[in-house]
């Protein structure tokens, strides 16, 4: 792992919750990619990414979500993104990505949506 990026994962039923912090860039994107890959290998397709502690994202970080979004949706799952700081959301917004990704305020909202509540 890298000291400018941290990642933790927890499970809530069939939902994987990945919390990321620090900087998601060309150097650290590989760590998130490995974590999502391991979820998919375990056939976990419902993923919540909690951005609470993330301070920065570049296109390399966005590319990780682009790489997996089709795969999870084809398997009745999704990657839902929550708790973004304004400056991180601004990068998604700049590119029009709110059209593509389900971006929510809290991880609880994302979990409820997955559970169909």
């Amino acid at each position, binding site marked *: 792992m890298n000291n400018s990026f941290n990642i933790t994962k927890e499970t809530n039923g069939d939902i994987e919750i990945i919390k990321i912090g620090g900087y998601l860039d060309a150097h650290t994107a590989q760590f998130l990619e490995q974590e999502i890959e391991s979820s998919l290998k375990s056939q976990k397709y419902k993923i919540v990414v909690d951005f609470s502690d993330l301070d920065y994202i*570049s296109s390399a970080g966005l590319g990780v979500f682009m790489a997996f979004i089709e795969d999870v949706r084809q398997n009745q799952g999704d990657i839902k993104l929550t708790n973004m700081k304004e400056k991180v959301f601004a990068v998604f917004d700049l590119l029009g990505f709110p059209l593509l990704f389900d971006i929510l305020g809290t991880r609880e909202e994302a979990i409820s949506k997955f559970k169909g509540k």
Partner: protein
Amino acid sequence: MLIENNNDFICINADSSELVRIRDFVLLKAKAFGFDETTATKITLAVDEACTNLIEHSYKFDRSREICIKIDTNDSKFTVLILDDGNSFDPLSKQKLDMSEYINNIRRGGLGIHIIRLVMDEIKYFPRSHNSPKNILMLTKYIH
């Protein structure tokens, strides 16, 4: 050496683990110039994307190579100069990205130059020559 004593100049090895140093430097300068947090972060992002492209495509991950950044400011003008000595490549020669096509087809990668175009007000490129041993990408943002 000029580099050592100039507060507006920084050089890094061409390694993605070094990008954070460039971002810290540009963010600090952009905020000190007067940009708000979000705009300063976007300028930092544009510079990060340009440097990432150099590391991956021009230097092909050879970390012994070098990228230097210089900040020039003048009235309302904030300019970041990115200097490298790889093969010349004018990012403006790349076709503009159609984002609705990009999103509909869920592609990956290729967003760096698009981000630079979206964020910066002016982009100029000067390939290296006999008189100038470095390629220079000049990214300018105006403060309003």
